């Protein structure tokens, strides 16, 4: 048993997607903090404040990948899972190059998301 629940950040600009994802992860006992943009997330994030970031690629102002390439993104020491609705090989390759721990195409199934989070947290299973 882990002493405290894992804390996951979700960044997605779609309110319903973000809210439903938060509820789903919370139903698995995770603590979730959500943001509608990477800029918002960067403003609130403090090192040691969380365990994993689930990041959407298509975001206003700065895209998920561009955020990862920025100094704030590069300075993150937590694993990042990138989600995209319109993925292609170029995005996947860039995500890998920028050190994302997983790359998921939307719609993301519950199983794959939980498995990706578990891997990112170094667990064999999500709970």
């Amino acid at each position, binding site marked *: 048993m882990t002493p405290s629940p894992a804390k996951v950040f979700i960044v997605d600009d779609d309110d319903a997607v973000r*809210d439903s994802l938060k509820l*789903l992860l919370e*139903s698995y006992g995770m603590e979730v903090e959500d943001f509608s943009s990477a800029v918002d997330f960067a403003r609130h994030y403090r090192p040691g404040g969380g365990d994993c970031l689930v990041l959407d690629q298509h975001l206003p102002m700065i895209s998920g990948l561009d955020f990862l390439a920025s100094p704030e993104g590069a300075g993150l020491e937590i694993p990042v899972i990138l989600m995209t609705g319109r993925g292609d090989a170029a995005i996947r390759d860039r995500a890998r190059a920028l050190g994302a721990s997983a790359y998921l195409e939307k719609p993301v199934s519950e199983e794959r998301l939980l498995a990706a989070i578990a891997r990112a947290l170094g667990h064999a299973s999500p709970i």
Partner: protein
Amino acid sequence: VSEVEQSRLLRALLDEAAIGITWAASDGRLVEANLSLCRLLGYERAELLERRYDEITHPEDQAREQVLFDRLLRGEIGSYALEKRYLGKGGHIVPVRVTSALTRVDDVLRLAIVEDLRQRGEGEVTLRAVLNAVPDGMVIIGERGIIESFSPSAERLFGYRSAEVVGQNVKMLMPPPYRDRHDAFVERYLDTGERRIIGMGRIVTGLRKDGGTFPMELSVGEAMVAGRRIFTGFIRDLTEREEAERRLDHLQQELMHVGRLSEMGQMGAVLAHELNQPLAALNNYLRAGTRMLEAMGVARSERIFEVMDKAGAQARRAGEIIRGLRQFVEKHETERRHEDVGKIVEEAIALALLGAKSGGIVVRIEMSEEQLSVFVDRIQIQQVVVNLVRNAVEAMAQSPEKRLTIATRRDGECVAVSVADTGPGLSADLADRLFTPYVTTKEKGMGIGLSICRQIVEAHGGRIRVESAPAGGARFLFTLPLSGQHAAIPDAAAGA
């Protein structure tokens, strides 16, 4: 001077006259003819005097002359003049002007004074030389539709020698059904004076000697020559031009088809993405709700779980449908071949400017001298070029200076195609967003065109961008990998 001597002198005088002279008896027999007429028709005098007047007259001119001759016989007129055709020895046609009167000796004699119309003086020789040099074919017909002149260019166009057609009805140069109507057309014109083709050009079909037909532009003029009406027909072969237009027409239809498909595809992709979001949320909510019910201790046997599962299954089903649509759109592989960039770009430019309001635009095409081969779907790439050129033309609608520059050049392992205009140009902000769907500068635009261009170019492994042109205005530039590279990894684009 004796009577015999007088007769001989008169004979010599007649023979030496530059004009042909003959007398025919009332039964039509030729009873006398001078040497000029014999030469004109190619007969020995003895041979000619065995002929009858109607035998040396072209069959199609006989009735016309008979009418006049009857009036002469009835005393209604004293003489008549007529341009007609004689038939020489061997059947060759001799256009002549005949002045005829009656002389009465023992029998009624028909006197015909014959002028050779083949020699109308130097002016005509010059004119003929000029007409022969015109690349258009020229055919002259009389008012009965009989061909009187057939230029060397006409010989080349129709495949007939002049000698084969002069004297024949011009309808032999027309395929049915025009062939059968032509006489009636001419007759109606002579009756009513109503012009249907004279004085204006028209595109008609010509019939060659070998039976083949060809599109031609026919301009018909009318002239009075020596009191006689003739029609001149100038003929321009449209075979090549029509072929080019047909090809462009075909291409345009293909492009429109692809355009519709692409717009549908693009809209499908946008729709798929937009619908994916709420469906994903729905799925998440259902799963979260299920887990909440479990956490509340609701027994797994309660029907609420069955209902939640069914709802989740339907949400996933909708997701599958959308995924299928997207895959169909994205994997809609098209025919790719090795193509010469210069050729497909040139064709696309011609097409784009064909229907565009391109008046006043100076078009400059700078093609790479190197032959650049790419492995592409020709129609799709041409659609990109057409789109860019049309946009450029539209962008310059209000510009005082309208210059359109289209260039191809090699850029490393790629070929770069650029389309530059002298329109108002684009702001940096707009330039960034221009290739995304539903962004447009046009009042009536959908904003779909450039996003399709990007989709096509990127699917071919290239890039598209816009920059400010050196001369002001915008320059769109897209790249395509050269064939050599692509051939090595043929699935590079398909796997993306």
